[in-house]
């Protein structure tokens, strides 16, 4: 609890939100990159199915996605039971882990689509050229793909982070609204409004607004400064 402008408000939801968004972004960077690469290079007609699956969270109501995730992460369900075999204790629902898993699914298209488009725009012959210059697969990724697709990475990271910060439906379904555990900032604001605590809602909303504007300006600044010259 802190007091600002004479209003007493808990900042925990903000920290939790930033933590979930950061972890989600990191995970999606690690998982989304190979997935996007695989999709970008895929030529079989199966690609359409996978692309549709990846884009699903864009069209599905968050509550629907959240509902299915809630079912999947049920403490007696197969997912939790399997994790138990590997020494996992506790439960997925109404926990930080659950929030992150839900966010990863919810923000998947925001990571995969920009990366996929960046990879598709990458001329194959540059990778071929690197191979003929003795660059291994990983070497090619770090010395050719990464620098040429950095705009795509920047967009993917920004969108994933921002989208996770702003989510509501999925985290409410999967995480619930446990104070100091799973109450994220969007839910907290909703709570305050419900209780007609407009001052608290104003404060949190204002902070999120300022934070978002600053982050976006930073990103566009970086993009402008380190923009890739191609063509």
């Amino acid at each position, binding site marked *: 609890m802190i007091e600002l402008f004479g209003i007493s408000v808990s900042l925990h939801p903000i920290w939790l939100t930033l933590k979930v968004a950061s972890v989600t972004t990191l995970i999606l960077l690690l998982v989304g990159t190979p997935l996007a690469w695989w999709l970008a290079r895929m030529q079989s007609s199966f690609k359409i199915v996978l692309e549709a699956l990846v884009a699903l969270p864009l069209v599905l109501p968050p509550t629907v996605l959240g509902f299915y995730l809630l079912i999947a992460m049920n403490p007696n369900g197969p997912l939790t039971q399997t994790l138990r075999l590997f020494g996992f204790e506790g439960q997925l629902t109404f926990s930080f882990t659950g929030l992150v898993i839900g966010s990863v699914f919810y923000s998947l298209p925001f990571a995969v689509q920009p990366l996929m488009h960046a990879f598709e725009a990458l001329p194959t*012959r540059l990778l071929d*050229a690197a191979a*003929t*210059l003795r660059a291994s697969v990983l070497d090619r990724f770090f*010395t050719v793909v990464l620098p040429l697709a950095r705009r795509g990475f920047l967009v993917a990271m920004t969108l994933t982070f921002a989208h996770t910060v702003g989510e509501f439906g999925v985290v409410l379904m999967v995480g619930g609204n446990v104070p100091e555990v799973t109450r994220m900032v969007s839910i907290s604001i909703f709570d305050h409004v419900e209780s007609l605590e407009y001052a608290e809602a104003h404060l949190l909303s204002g902070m999120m607004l300022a934070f978002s504007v600053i982050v976006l300006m930073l990103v566009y600044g970086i993009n402008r400064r380190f923009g890739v*010259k191609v*063509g």
Partner: protein
Amino acid sequence: MLKGNLTLRQGTFLLESGPFEVETRGVTVLFGRSGSGKSTLLRAITGLDKHTRGTLSFDGELWQDGARRLPTQRRDIGFVFQDAALFPHLTVRGNLEYALRRAPRTGGPGLEAIAERVGISHKLDQDVVTLSGGEKQRVAIARALLSRPRLLCMDEPLSALDWRAKGELLTLIDELARETGVPVLYITHAPIEVERLASRVVFMAEGRIERIETLREALARPDSPLFDEEGPVSVLEGTMGEPDADGLAPFGNERVCIRLTGPCADKRSATRLRILARDVSLAIDEPQRVSILNHLPITIERIDPARDGRVTVAGRLLDGQLLLAEITAFSQRHLGLAPGATAWALIKSVALME
């Protein structure tokens, strides 16, 4: 020595090379029309396409065995792409260093020396996007050489260039192939590039290797695919000598000498002369009072059947090289030209290939 039998399907196109064995010393040209499978074969040879099947070995080292494939980066090859494929996020120097950093440390000319040799030392710190087409290809060639390849592959490296840049780069490639001794696999559909560079030619058609011949053998065939709308061509090899008082420079050897005029006389490093069969006339006796400078005695070896009233006569020069002459079937009958007979070849014009 490149030996194997490769298949590769790309969409609806099927490459089925058939068994082949090619000596790779010097410049080997893959020649064929568009869509004949030259580039596909080169991708299969370099391992750039993972769907390649069959067998392939280079100098005894196994590169492909069934579906198992030695990755491209471990084949010690260099590759010059049609559009250079320079890394746009690096400067010219960055592109060259990319190759050098990954090359085996076996010595050989360094970055500055190679840049100087290909004529880009003043461009080293420029962005590659600011280069002209010819400059890009020079950088690509330098980059490929700096990776110290055992086999240098070039996929139509000149096709996007204007004629002047084309000529300059042909000379450069020819000289570099000789200086470095690195075997070159060169793709083109332009006969003039074959005649200029090739030691041997791999003819491709419809996804197959049709035949592998030395340039000399390829040009001796009456139906050679190297003959385009200009008709049959002879390529004579020799060296340039000092111009005499009249500005005429001799080209050839002890037994055959062709005198050249004008700008030709300055091209001192030229080693090949291109003569169109339709620029060669035949006479039974050595003509005495005639404006044509070059008369060479030949022994007629073969007369190809008439086409549109004209025949191609193949004659051996004194040094054993083949010279083709295109004359009318009427003249051939009238002069009584037949295999085994001797005659004089009158050469109206030649082109030095430099």
